[in-house]
């Protein structure tokens, strides 16, 4: 029966190619636009390390002066980064299973195949960065905690940088010159692109991860200033790393891994005790706001998804609904045009349900074809979005660097929307035609 109905559906479409094309086009366009905006929205709102959402926490606390919040636009939040004093205290507390201190700096690399010097973003971080954020290694591995304090002249390269410097060969053990100092390569990452770049939102939420990683101790040893954000409020010198380390400026990102609720409670208690103690010494004049934020909370607090994107998703659905309304109209017209035939079929013994099903299947075929076409369209749209938002990697300015690659989520959405399309567009017209009275049409024949 199903195959027969399918055959009838195809025949009926073939008889009416113009109207069919219109309906197909409307459904495809509606689904295509929806899938495009949803894919972008999904890429922006996703948690790139969801499997550790109950373990990873960003530490922040409000060290700003009593008179004003760190961020006027988000006054309920403490500054996104920590002062060296606070970060160092929590780092040595011993409660977290893993912990990282970090910031971004820039360096110039002179090595390997590159004939010209290469300026790269570099993350100055502690040893736990790699295991804590589940960073995948292609060759070698990270460094030990001892290398941080030394500091040992070790460096980890991103997949992309290794590709550019060494043509993707195993470069572990080789030495490269980074800002006038020699560093030995201990690890090369696999392609790794967490989107959004949750662990440091100060240098662009959708920028690529840094091209290289250096042990924390080099911050002081080479006086590497942050190329991200250094946020200060007090009148004090902050021209060198030494000056920054003793200042009230916030410039260090800190994340900890707390395996269970107990560790979390102890960490929170430690922060509160520390806060009380420091307040007695005259710091922390604002209301207590000691936060342990998991990745979801962190991304939400810092409004990584812009309102524009929400608006576009809403708009896309409004568009889809108009497309579907349209298709209802056309489908209704098409079905009722065939009412005499349905009347004959009824007279020959087909039940209302059969007529209904036959037409619903017609609508289903249409919606499915529309969804497939829409999926293709959305791939084209996304390609357009990538061009529109194309950033300039050399100046590090402009749109999103790697957003909106097409993924399985898009396909899932297209299928879901196709089902919705069938239900919305098919039900009413099929019901109407099912109710057609056979007598009237037989008479008119």
């Amino acid at each position, binding site marked *: 029966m199903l195959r027969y109905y399918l055959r*009838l559906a195809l*025949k*009926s479409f073939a008889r009416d190619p113009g*109207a069919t094309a*219109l309906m197909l086009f409307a459904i495809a*366009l509606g689904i295509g*636009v929806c899938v495009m905006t949803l894919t972008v929205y999904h890429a922006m709102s996703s948690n790139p390390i969801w499997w550790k959402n109950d373990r990873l926490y960003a530490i922040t606390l409000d060290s700003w*002066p009593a*008179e*004003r919040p760190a961020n006027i636009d988000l006054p309920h939040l403490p500054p996104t980064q920590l002062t060296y004093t606070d970060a160092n205290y929590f780092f040595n507390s011993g409660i977290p299973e893993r912990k990282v201190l970090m910031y971004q*700096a*820039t360096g*110039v690399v*002179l090595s390997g195949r590159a004939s010209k*010097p290469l*300026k790269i973003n570099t993350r100055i971080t502690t040893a736990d960065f790699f295991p804590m954020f589940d960073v995948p290694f292609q060759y070698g591995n990270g460094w030990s905690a001892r290398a941080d304090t030394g500091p040992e002249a070790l460096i980890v390269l991103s997949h992309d940088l290794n590709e550019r410097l060494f043509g993707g060969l195993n470069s572990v053990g080789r030495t490269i010159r980074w800002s*006038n100092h020699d560093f030995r390569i201990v690890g090369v990452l696999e392609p790794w692109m967490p989107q959004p770049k949750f662990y440091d939102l100060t240098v662009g939420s959708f920028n690529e991860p840094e091209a290289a990683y250096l042990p924390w101790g080099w911050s002081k040893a080479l006086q590497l*200033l942050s*190329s991200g954000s250094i946020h200060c*409020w*007090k*009148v*004090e*010198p902050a*021209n*060198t790393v030494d000056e920054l380390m003793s200042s009230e400026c916030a410039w260090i990102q800190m994340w900890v891994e707390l395996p269970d609720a107990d560790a979390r409670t102890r960490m929170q208690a430690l922060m509160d005790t520390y806060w009380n103690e420091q307040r007695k010494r005259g710091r922390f004049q604002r209301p207590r706001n000691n936060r342990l934020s998991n990745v979801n909370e962190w991304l939400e607090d810092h409004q990584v998804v*812009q309102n*524009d994107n929400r608006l*576009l998703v809403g*708009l*896309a659905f*409004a*568009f889809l*609904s*108009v497309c579907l*309304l*349209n298709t209802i*109209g*056309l489908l*209704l*017209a098409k079905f*009722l*045009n065939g009412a005499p*035939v349905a009347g*004959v*079929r009824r007279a*020959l013994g087909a039940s209302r349900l059969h007529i209904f099903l036959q037409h619903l299947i017609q609508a289903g075929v249409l919606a499915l074809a529309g969804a497939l076409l829409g999926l293709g369209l959305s791939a084209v749209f996304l390609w357009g*979005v990538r061009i*529109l*938002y194309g*950033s*300039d990697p*050399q*100046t590090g*300015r*402009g*749109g999103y660097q790697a957003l909106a690659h097409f993924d399985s989520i898009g396909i899932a959405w297209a299928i879901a929307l196709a089902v919705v399309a069938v239900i919305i567009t098919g039900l009413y017209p099929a019901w*109407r035609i099912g109710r057609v009275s056979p007598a009237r049409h037989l008479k*008119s*024949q």
Partner: protein
Amino acid sequence: MRLHVRPILSAMLRNWTGPVLVAAQISITLAVLINAVYIVKQRVDRIGRPTGIDVENIFVIRSVGVNDKYAHEAAMRADLAYLRGVTGVVAAAPISSPPLTGRGDRIGVMLKFDDHAHGIVTHYYEVDDQALAALGVRLAAGRFFQANEVLPPRRTSGDVIGAPVAVITQALANDLYPDGHALGKPIYDSFGFLTAPATIVGIIEHMHGSRVSWDKFDRILMAPRLPFPDEPAVNYLVRTRPGQRDVVLRAVDEHMQNSNPDRMIEWTRTLEYLKNLSYVADRNMAIFLVAITLMLIAITCIGIYGLATFNVSRRARQIGTRRALGAQREDIVRYFLVEKADNDSWSDHRLRTRSSERLLAFHSLWLTAAGSLLSRRRDPDALDRRATGRMAARAPCRRGVTGSGDTQRLRAVPPSTEGFVTLNLPKQQQG
């Protein structure tokens, strides 16, 4: 003029599905259209704000020291001497971060020392005496820096010497001194980049800073100092004579790539390009909204076209009969336009035509363009084209008239009934 509401309503009540679908489509389309127009206007206005800077004639070169032989100050002086000698260059100056590019330093400034409760956050630029000319901004009052006031870079020596003079924008002056007398007044900063206090010696009429998405984008303070950001790097602003920017850019870039082996030219870009990148989200939002709205209008148009087609094609046999009995094509078109409003009779067609036209015009107000395209294809002969709103509905009406209606529809039974019916059905009655 009388509006013939009653016949329109009665027609709608007779068959409510079509009008409801059309009304829903049009209301969503209208809602989207109105909001889109509002937002697009907002974005376009934002992108078009006057910057105060001679954006079209400026390009920016970023130079970074790459080895330990690199001498920041000497390299900068050599580069500036070269740039100022190139023909076509109006002015060149170093700046700590280029304006309009999204990123840049901000500091707090105050009227009293360490009064951070009343600190005002502002863009902060380190420049030399040529920056005013290199940016193409105008002074509203006072003077700009003199060559002998320009201090050596920070971070090269241990102690930072504060700058005794500063130039600010009118916007910052208004926020600091609402009474309008900022010139010659003292000012304090939060990092000791200025002497405590420094004197405001000049006020810039209007200029945008780096962070264009910040609502205080026009608060700027400049200090006379050779720049040294977080790395041994410098941005040169080069302003050329009108029309010569791209030529000068290529020549300068080529020369500077090789002029000093101890540094690299990280990038060379026009300020226009950098500015556009800063507004990319606004521009794209406008593009998306316009595109979606246009598609929406097109789809709504197609929808109404489809519904009208339905109404007409249902009556194809009747049309065929009437054509066979001698009715003109125009009579049929008029009949359907009238019938949309009232089924009783079509004798008083002139009057009725108007009211039905209004109904159809309402349906297809948004669809004029597409509708006329469709109708023009089929209809080279003369029908009243004044009410263009009718076009979308008229095309389907015409389709009922032309096509094969005259012959095929008069035939007794549709030749195929889905390959299912093999009965001999009675001959058709007259319509």
